């Protein structure tokens, strides 16, 4: 694994941390990493433990699995339980709770639910089982949407009619704007998403500094990438700059991936509104299949409950996501809402802010390195 070792070099990390400590000074600064992949890196490598106490990372809404609202999970399960259907899904969607259990439980009740690594695997299953209907549970940001789009193009080209897509692809910019629009926002900058930006590029984030006066640095997924992005954010703040910068230049171009974007435009159109777990309805925040792909649209092919299941009132995921409150400030945290029985987004994924705090809170509190305290 030569190619990743250089991004995990402890000596380089120590230098970056020293720079962060020096640049950070005594100010308490909060940066949000938007992407769930970043949150994963932060936990996996214990980055919060090596940062000075003055720098706080707020875990954003970019975990594609946990923003899917309960009603959509229920719809997916309803399709999965339709006789004759093979329902395919990415692995980490399997345990996301709907209002009446998750896909693993539906499988245990007899539904034919299969885990796939790519929508193309789902299409292959459709080709191999011509007498069955195969549905792919499409989720994710602009990162995974192009592979769903390519699969749909292939399905049309090959005339595979026993395949359809239950589309739940979402867009990254609208929730970012929703968070920025909240009056109680307390953030000092953003670590911009990496994989999404390989598709959409860096330009769509220009409104963040322009309209909201906050810096954003697009970052890669190795631990050194994250530290480097924090250094770049701090430099902007110290130098009085406020702009979109690209730490992940080895993968992200300003204009994005033009081919992927054109495929997206061919297959998808923007939904008028879509519900986000924890954030509520956000207009123009998700994708649906265009008219041309109606024959492969599972939403048109199956009758689903389509019932909106409200997030429990007591759940304060929105405030946690915005960095307004800490997980332990939420009324249901640790009582009604636990990793075994999650209520909101932040508890569903093991990388959500609440789940992480539930599991690691006492330890983190005990070992937090008070770098700057006298």
């Amino acid at each position, binding site marked *: 694994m030569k190619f990743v070792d250089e991004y995990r070099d*402890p000596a380089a990390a120590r230098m970056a941390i020293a720079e962060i400590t020096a640049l950070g000074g005594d100010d308490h600064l909060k940066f949000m990493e938007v992407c769930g992949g970043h949150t994963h890196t932060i936990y996996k490598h214990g980055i919060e433990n090596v940062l000075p106490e003055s720098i706080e990372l707020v875990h954003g809404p970019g975990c594609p699995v946990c923003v899917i609202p309960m009603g959509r999970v229920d719809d997916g399960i309803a399709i999965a339980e339709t006789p004759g259907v093979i329902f395919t899904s990415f692995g980490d969607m399997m345990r996301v709770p709907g209002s009446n259990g998750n896909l693993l439980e539906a499988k245990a009740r007899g539904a034919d639910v299969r885990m796939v690594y*790519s929508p193309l695997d789902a299409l292959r299953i459709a080709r191999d089982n011509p007498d069955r209907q195969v549905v792919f549970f499409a989720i994710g940001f602009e990162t995974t949407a192009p592979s769903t789009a390519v699969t749909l193009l292939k399905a049309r080209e090959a005339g595979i009619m026993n395949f359809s897509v239950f589309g739940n692809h979402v867009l990254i910019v609208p929730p970012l704007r929703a968070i920025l629009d909240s009056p109680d926002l307390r953030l000092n900058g953003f670590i911009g998403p990496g994989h999404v930006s390989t598709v959409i590029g860096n330009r769509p984030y220009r409104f963040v500094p322009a309209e909201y006066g906050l810096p954003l640095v697009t970052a890669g997924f190795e631990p050194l990438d994250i530290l480097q992005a924090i250094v770049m954010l701090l430099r902007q703040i110290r130098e009085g700059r406020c702009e979109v910068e690209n730490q992940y230049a080895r993968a992200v171009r300003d204009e994005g991936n033009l081919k992927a974007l054109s495929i997206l435009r061919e297959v998808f159109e923007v939904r008028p509104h879509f519900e986000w777990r924890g954030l509520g309805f956000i207009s123009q925040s998700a994708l649906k299949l265009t008219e041309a792909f109606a024959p492969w649209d599972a939403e048109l092919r199956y009758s689903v409950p389509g019932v909106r299941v409200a997030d429990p009132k007591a759940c304060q995921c929105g405030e946690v996501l915005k960095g307004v409150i800490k997980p332990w400030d939420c009324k249901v945290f640790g009582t009604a809402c636990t990793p075994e029985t999650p209520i909101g987004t932040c508890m569903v994924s093991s990388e959500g802010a609440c789940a992480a705090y539930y599991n690691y809170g006492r330890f983190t509190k005990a070992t937090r390195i008070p770098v700057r305290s006298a």
Partner: protein
Amino acid sequence: MSEPSREDIVLDRIEAFRRRRPRLLEEAVNSAHGAGGKASAALIDAVFLEAFRNDTLAPMADGALLPLPSGERLAFSTDSFVVKPLRFPGGSIGHLAVHGTVNDVAMMGGIPQWISAAFVLEEGFPIAELREIVADMAEAAAAAGVQIVTGDTKVVNKGAADGVYISTAGVGVVPAGVELGADKVQPGDKVIVSGRIGDHGIAVMLARGELGITADVESDTAPLGELVQVLLAAAPNTRWLRDPTRGGVATVCNELAKTSELHVSLDEAALPVQNAVNGACEILGIDALYVANEGKFVAVVPAAETDAALAALRAHPLGEKAAVIGEIREEPPGIVIINTVFGGTRIVDMLVGDPLPRIC
């Protein structure tokens, strides 16, 4: 730091909640209940332990330790094998059935001697394939120095089983003086793994052919009886032994931390993982610490005997890559923490079910 007390109240509440016995919430069995993680523990606790509770079962080890009237002790263990595909690089369900059984007896400190084998066969299963599996078992038993001394055969309707399932039991005598158990583990002891981790789980996952990736990874399936005796000869005060099968090294370390009420501190840089396994894990978004092994053990040995243990293990072909991967500490009790290569730390928790690949 003026920490609001609400944080402490909440943390105390969580702590109390986590100490409670695992809760079984589901109404039907699902695949997570068979994965060796929290869901498995909840099922075993709420259903099996509840009904069968007794002193011999209580330690919840890899097998039971049975005192004989003569004063000797017998290690007794049972297992079943439902692996798919039946054949994978490095072995087959036949090898696994023998090795898995022998290894559970070995983890109790026993010298495996006899095993049983019961077969559940699906109508239509080719006899030729059955012959091959049975030949693998015979070969594995001979190599492990055990005899298959009793068995059973059942045939079920087509569709009621997936080819062949094998159920086994194994027994062996525990030599006098061998005293293993989580209660023997002390702060300052070292944690040793007998070789590279993650090979079996990755080999089987890739052999299913669903991932579209190929890598040169073979299952590590092997009998550990001899290697355990090598360890016990070099480190006679070895405290604890476990084979990290389902759930991997992370899960057995968690079980150790919980039953000993001590802290297990692991060193990421010391973990022996081969490049191909690391690469496959990176692509799949899973962690080698949670991937199954079938020819490895995790041992806790006193610090003073660590060098001797390591030297002896490395001199044996099955222990060449043995390494000290961590140590036992007093605080914080009940949890496993890994010190990352990067200089950070993270908690290594028990998974609820199977490791699910991440999409981003």
